[in-house]
């Protein structure tokens, strides 16, 4: 374990250091949204719909308004119909004229304290005309099914939805390569299976919260637990019609997001209450409200077919996948397309046919969640590949190695794979887990237990999306770094500071990381898609290049020499090579600011967006995204050792080895933490976590019934192994790590289970009951 005191750091990239804000988090001083108090602050509470699908005929709010201490009650009638959403604009600030899921916010209250606000919210009555509802994909696409969004065609969409076939479908996408019919005809062996996954809850420890305040000029500031201040600003702007110049979105410390806080939910409501009352309003959801009203991971049903030659060469891959998107579109179309994008995994298939459907149902909306559609499809793909290996009598590692995609190959859609450390990842986990030894001589399990190893490979991207950075030289020679990226706790502030420092030869404590603020920061789409280290790092590299260039020019002037003779020296100096003549950054700053020939304040900017031209006939997400604009491909491999109790079916993960190619580890300790944390979130997804609906009612919205792993549910050792194959576009070669570890766990664990049990469960989570039924009756779990 490398222990480093932050004040002694230099050569900042590649160094393990604890987070810049770790001390305040350790001593209770860190401010999260619900910790904030403003003078005169009111507390907000929500009234949530109790019916799954209904027209709203009216509201009875007089009892709520009459409660002493209540200052405002808002309903959908108080707003113009304005729609927000990233991919489809189908959501309003509060339900308007219709509700579409149990838990949808229908009204909001502001009162002098939280208890009063909640009591008032309970007194609000909504008069509904209930409509028939659909709770499953089958019900939603059936003929004459009740329609959730009658105005779907009129909603603004970033993609072309015209391929949809039924009124509740919101997207139908296909990706093809070669000729699938021919591919299967050429195959010696074809497997055809169905895999299912359940809805997973993000379960960030900090429930969603927002605090909004309006100033004397009518400008609103909203502090919130968010993954993107710019998406918060856009959501408030779109749903309330306030110009962006009048909306400032900032974030205090955020207690985890995992995709659930990329898009807004409570923020527009808090803003509306603040504007109505003229006082600051803070809303903090209870855990139950957060589970009921925010968003989940998509439950997905996938039919997958793989065709291969007897010698193990992969020939054909076909998928038809159904994404249950819940009542609002959120990121669904993008998530489903992402799943298709990874439908082949990191393998070569000449013939590919991938079809995805996304459907509205009257349940909680499903949206972005660490992996973004990839976990669901990788689970199906990696499991089927293991079954194929068994069918062909080939070792699962060898079968994968035989068909791997390499650097220089083309991904589906034509993007060239720039780099790949995948073989090294496989080598590391296979060696560390003694895969080959154990294949030859399996570990003996104690009486009544079974033991087995499983492997899975991951392919994901560090998503491109638009990014910018500003680096400013301060008068004392330190720099200010402003990127607009929100740190959710994954350590981006620290990694970005490390990259900025390294780009200028400074120590990390000479970098002032400015908190994301739509007033002051340059645009960053958000903290998601495993993209911040990668994309913001690239923008920072551009910005520090500019700053260095400007400083060098000034230094050449001050030292009266040629540019070519200068070198950057650690600690904030530029000197003449081979001499001890130098100037400090502070001196350069002074020159730039005070002297007529100084050129003005030294500032550098970077702005990155992929600009490969869009071929409208050849895109991801039906006209929206050129394949080359999706992201930088990243790869990983995981091996998991499980033990199964034959009496109860309970699966325990004994040990895990997770190797991920991150290009370059800016902060190795932080990368390890992401790998371990992502693995455990994937362990929960694979074994214990399932949101359960009874019709439209979520039956387990609490930690008492919805179980995430505790310290006693995880292996003693989760070996995080870092592989580094430098990315060509990043100043330090780095790529992202946020999502891949979860994707790996969700596939490696089921593969280990199948190896140990000799029986496969094709539905996640593999609960003890599903496992026991598989052991005893050969059931595959899909209908359990």
């Amino acid at each position: 374990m490398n222990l480093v005191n932050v004040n002694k750091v230099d050569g900042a990239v590649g160094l393990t250091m604890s987070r810049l804000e770790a001390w305040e988090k350790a001593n209770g001083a860190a401010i999260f949204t619900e910790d904030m108090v403003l003078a005169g602050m009111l507390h907000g509470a929500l009234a949530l719909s109790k019916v799954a699908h209904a027209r709203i005929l009216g509201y009875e709010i007089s009892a709520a308004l009459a409660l002493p201490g209540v200052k405002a009650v808002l309903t959908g009638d108080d707003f113009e119909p304005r729609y927000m959403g990233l991919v489809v604009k189908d959501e309003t600030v509060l339900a308007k004229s219709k509700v579409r899921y149990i838990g949808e916010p229908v009204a909001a209250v502001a009162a002098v304290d939280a208890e009063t606000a909640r009591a008032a919210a309970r007194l609000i009555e909504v008069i509904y005309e209930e409509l028939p509802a659909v709770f499953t994909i089958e019900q939603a696409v059936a003929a004459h099914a009740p329609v959730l969004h009658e105005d779907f065609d009129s909603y603004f969409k970033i993609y072309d939805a015209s391929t949809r076939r039924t009124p509740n479908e919101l997207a139908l996408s296909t990706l093809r390569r070669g000729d699938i019919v021919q591919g299967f005809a050429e195959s010696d062996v074809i497997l055809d299976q169905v895999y299912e996954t359940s809805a997973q809850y993000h379960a960030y420890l900090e429930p969603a919260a927002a605090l909004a305040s309006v100033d004397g000029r009518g400008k609103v500031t909203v502090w919130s637990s968010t993954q993107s201040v710019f998406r918060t600003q856009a959501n408030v702007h779109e749903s309330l019609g306030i110009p962006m110049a009048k909306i400032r979105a900032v974030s205090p410390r955020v207690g985890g997001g995992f995709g659930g806080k990329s898009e807004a939910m409570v923020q527009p409501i808090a803003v509306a209450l603040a504007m109505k009352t003229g006082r600051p309003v803070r809303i903090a959801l209870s855990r139950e409200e957060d589970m009921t009203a925010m968003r989940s991971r998509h439950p997905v049903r996938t039919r997958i077919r793989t065709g291969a030659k007897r010698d193990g060469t992969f020939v054909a891959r076909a998928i038809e996948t159904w994404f249950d998107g819940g009542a609002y579109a959120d990121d669904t179309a993008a998530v489903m397309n992402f799943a298709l994008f990874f439908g082949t995994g990191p393998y070569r298939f000449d013939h590919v046919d991938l079809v995805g459907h996304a459907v509205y149902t009257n349940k909680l909306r499903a949206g972005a969640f660490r992996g973004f559609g990839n976990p669901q499809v990788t689970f199906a793909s990696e499991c089927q590949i293991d079954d194929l290996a068994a069918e062909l009598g080939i070792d699962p590692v060898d079968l994968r190695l035989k068909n791997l995609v390499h650097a220089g190959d083309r991904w589906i859609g034509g993007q060239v794979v720039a780099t790949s450390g995948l073989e090294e990842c496989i080598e590391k986990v296979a060696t560390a887990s003694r895969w080959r030894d154990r294949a030859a001589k399996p570990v003996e399990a104690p009486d009544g237990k079974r033991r087995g190893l499983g492997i899975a490979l991951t392919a994901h991207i560090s998503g491109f999306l638009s990014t910018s950075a500003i680096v400013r030289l301060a008068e004392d020679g330190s720099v200010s770094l402003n990127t607009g990226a929100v740190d959710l706790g994954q350590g981006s502030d620290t990694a970005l500071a490390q990259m900025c420092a390294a780009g200028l030869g400074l120590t990390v404590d000479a970098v002032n990381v400015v908190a994301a603020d739509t007033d002051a920061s340059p645009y960053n789409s958000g903290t998601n898609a495993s993209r911040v280290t990668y994309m913001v790092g690239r923008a920072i590299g551009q910005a520090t290049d500019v700053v260095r260039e400007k400083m060098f020019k000034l230094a050449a002037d001050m030292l009266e020499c040629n540019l070519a003779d200068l070198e950057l020296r650690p600690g904030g100096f530029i000197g003449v090579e081979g001499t001890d003549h130098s100037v400090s950054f502070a001196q350069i700053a002074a020159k730039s600011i005070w002297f007529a020939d100084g050129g003005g304040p030294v500032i550098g900017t970077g702005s990155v967006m992929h600009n490969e031209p869009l071929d409208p006939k050849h895109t991801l997400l039906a006209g929206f995204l050129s394949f080359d604009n999706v992201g930088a491909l990243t790869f990983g491999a995981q091996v998991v050792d499980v033990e199964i109790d034959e009496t109860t079916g309970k699966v325990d993960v004994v040990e895990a080895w997770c190797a991920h190619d991150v290009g370059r580890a800016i902060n190795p300790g932080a990368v390890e933490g992401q790998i371990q944390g992502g693995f455990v979130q994937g362990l929960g997804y694979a074994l214990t976590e399932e949101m359960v609906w009874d019709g439209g009612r979520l039956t387990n919205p609490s930690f008492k019934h919805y179980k995430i792993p505790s310290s006693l549910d995880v292996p003693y050792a989760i070996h995080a192994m870092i592989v580094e194959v430098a990315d060509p576009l990043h100043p330090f070669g780095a790529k992202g790590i946020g999502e891949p570890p979860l994707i790996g766990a969700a596939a490696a664990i089921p593969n280990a289970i199948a190896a140990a049990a000799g029986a496969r469960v094709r539905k996640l989570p593999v609960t003890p009951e599903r496992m026991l039924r598989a052991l005893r009756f050969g059931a595959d779990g899909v209908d359990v």
Partner: protein
Amino acid sequence: MVAGMNAGLPKPSQVVSLQDIPGLRGMIVEADGAVRIAAMTVHAAVAAESRLAGGLAVVREAALQIAHPAIRNMGTLGGSLADADPNADYPCALLAAGADIELAGPRGRRICPVDAFFLGRFTTALAAGEIIVGVKLPPPALEETSTYLKFSRVDGDYATVSVAVRVGWRDGACTAIRIALGSCGGTPIRVPSAERALVGTKLDVAALRIAAGAYVAACDPPSDFRGTADYRRMIIPGLLERAVRNALNADRGIRS
């Protein structure tokens, strides 16, 4: 109760705390080896009681597996028993131990044997105005061992199925046995006829299977987040067998 208040359930009009009443905390071992645990003793204190050994270890093991450390510092024996949650650990363990529940009320004190105390889901023999003041555990015989086996989905969860066993073993045969099955109905249950049939046997697999069959038939398991009723019936035999084995191996420190 506080969790319910936090969730917006109606507040009780009055709450009476027992925390300052003297004599309601702690454990005493009497001259004959009987043990009395006072009602306000927290789970953590019971879990740390090495004097609860042999035939009484089952009570300590149950306390050790309740929820999480912070909850074990707050929850009390009396509180758990009065709550009578079908999925709780103490009721099942005390049923196997053969405890007597000591009650006090406006009409004085009385003893209720544990076999008559749990009447249904969240329902006990407590009369209006009565509180639990303690639990008396019978003196353990020298040849007795005991154990509490809890199977749950994840650590700290309520039991999916729990089995508590108190067993006497001498000269290669069972001299006495009490088996309680928890989380499989409104209350934990024993099947005395099955227990009697095990006395004198070697508690071999075949004998235990027959006993387990009786427990499966007698219980009324729920279908809930932790599993279906069917699933619980499937796993009871194996868990019962495992619990008996663990109890017999307890003095050798072997567990499975």
